């Protein structure tokens, strides 16, 4: 949150510096594409500035790290530590345990994303960012969707395989690949067909300027839910690891 405040606090000095837009316009397309600088977007508007500084990389990264850590810890990590042995010997269905843990992960993701959205709402008048509340809401929603997808992927992979390394590695690797596909598909035509697989592409970039892609957010949320359910079914089929 303090990171968001610091970034927002710098904005007034950016705003008074119109040459920056010219500088950025002279950047090569590859850089603009990777930094999430929208075509025709402006870095000297509040929304454009925060899209680049926060929503193109930093915030998704923070939310993903938190979500993946939480998803991997809560099942594969607990199993690794031998703590599921006792709990699953109780009259508890394994799939209910996975779903309950999914709810806990969702709680963490929602809390962080909501705090982000509220921070932006609060900072908006202070630094004259001139943001649209509707766009803040949809930007927050896209963060939630990305967070749930990676967190539930970590939880689901952990539940299905009992491996904490996979529970971290699979969603982290997927996120990295998906991020690159989203950043580069405009420039590398062979990547273009894969853009549909990138949740970053699906939710849309520059959400504070353009709003998030609502149907894309929905698709990502549904995929996240499907992964969680798959994990909860697969966990029933395997042996619990010996602590």
């Amino acid at each position, binding site marked *: 949150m303090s990171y968001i405040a610091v970034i927002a606090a710098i904005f007034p000095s950016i705003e008074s510096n119109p040459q920056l837009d010219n500088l950025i316009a002279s950047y090569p397309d590859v850089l603009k594409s990777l930094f999430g600088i929208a075509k025709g977007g402006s870095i000297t508007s509040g929304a454009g500035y925060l899209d680049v500084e926060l929503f193109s990389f930093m915030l998704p990264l923070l939310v993903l790290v938190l979500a993946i850590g939480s998803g991997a810890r809560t099942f594969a990590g607990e199993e690794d530590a031998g703590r599921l042995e006792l709990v699953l010997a*109780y009259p*508890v269905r394994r799939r209910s345990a996975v779903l309950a843990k999914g709810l806990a992960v969702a709680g963490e993701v929602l809390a962080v994303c909501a705090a982000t959205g509220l921070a932006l709402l609060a900072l908006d008048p202070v630094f004259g960012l001139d943001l649209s509340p509707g766009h803040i809401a949809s930007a927050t929603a896209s963060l939630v969707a990305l967070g749930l997808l990676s967190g539930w992927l970590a939880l689901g992979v952990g539940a299905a395989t009992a491996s904490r390394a996979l529970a971290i590695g699979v969603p982290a690797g997927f996120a990295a690949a998906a991020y690159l596909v989203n950043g580069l598909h405009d420039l590398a035509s062979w990547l273009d067909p894969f853009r549909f697989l990138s949740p970053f592409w699906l939710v849309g970039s520059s959400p504070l300027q353009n709003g998030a892609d609502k149907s894309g957010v929905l698709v990502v949320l549904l995929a996240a839910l499907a992964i969680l359910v798959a994990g909860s079914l697969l966990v029933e089929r395997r*042996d619990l690891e010996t*602590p």
Partner: protein
Amino acid sequence: MPESSAIETVGLSKTYGKSVRALVDLDLRVERGEIFGYLGPNGAGKSTTIRLLLDLIHPTSGRASLFGLDTRGQGVASRRLVGYLPGDLRLSDRLTGREQLDSLARLRGLRDSHHRDELCERFGVVLDRPIRQLSKGNRQKLGLVQAFMHRPDLVVLDEPTSGLDPFLQGEVRTLLRENADEGRTVFLSSHSLDEVQHVADRVAVIRSGRLVDVGEVETLRERSLRHVTATFAEPVDPSSFGSLEGVRVTSVEGPRVHLSAPETAMDALVKELARHQIVDLVSQPADLEEIFLELYREGGDGR
């Protein structure tokens, strides 16, 4: 139709990978109200059996039921009747004992904490410190309380007295006996004959994943060997010892005689030894491995 047994397994087997046969064709029946000892060296398949009964792992073949409820198909219903103390107990280090017990009770939907409080008082459980600060013995006490707190029809205990002092070990035995007297069943796994023999009604011996023998504790106790070393004031003729039932003279070094004898022969042996002037007498229980070897030799048919 007869009342179903507390535990019944039919051809229960577990193979890891292609070749590691952790449990082979286990046919076992534990009746209601008995204390059943499950004895074997480390790695014999005791924990594998228990984890199969609780559906933590799935059998390669065969089946098991608790009170007639299939452990696979009716796992939740069957586990509702069970209290379990794992051999390697891992609790949530950051919680206090009280928080841990509260959370486990909630998982069972257990509202009445009366019996739990009684048990905590009885074992002197430390409730208000984080679990990470507790000694092994104090964690084990928490494990015992959670296994008994809902008055389960079947308690499954994997090496329950590890880390407990002798006084508490006695207290655990008393608790087991009380449970059995109330008609509840106890399944007690251990690698130590001493832990089991004073409390169990029947004992199964398992080795390398196979059931070696099931019988009354008395029977096993008869085979429970002691190593006896007697040092006499002067060399004696040991032949009169060797002629006692079950006693063997293993070696003689001057005035010192080494013997092996079952517990049941100790009285006769000591009386025989006492006919000579004794300087020193040492008796040690043979370790379980030796007793198992003995069992194999004496017609354990390796089912």
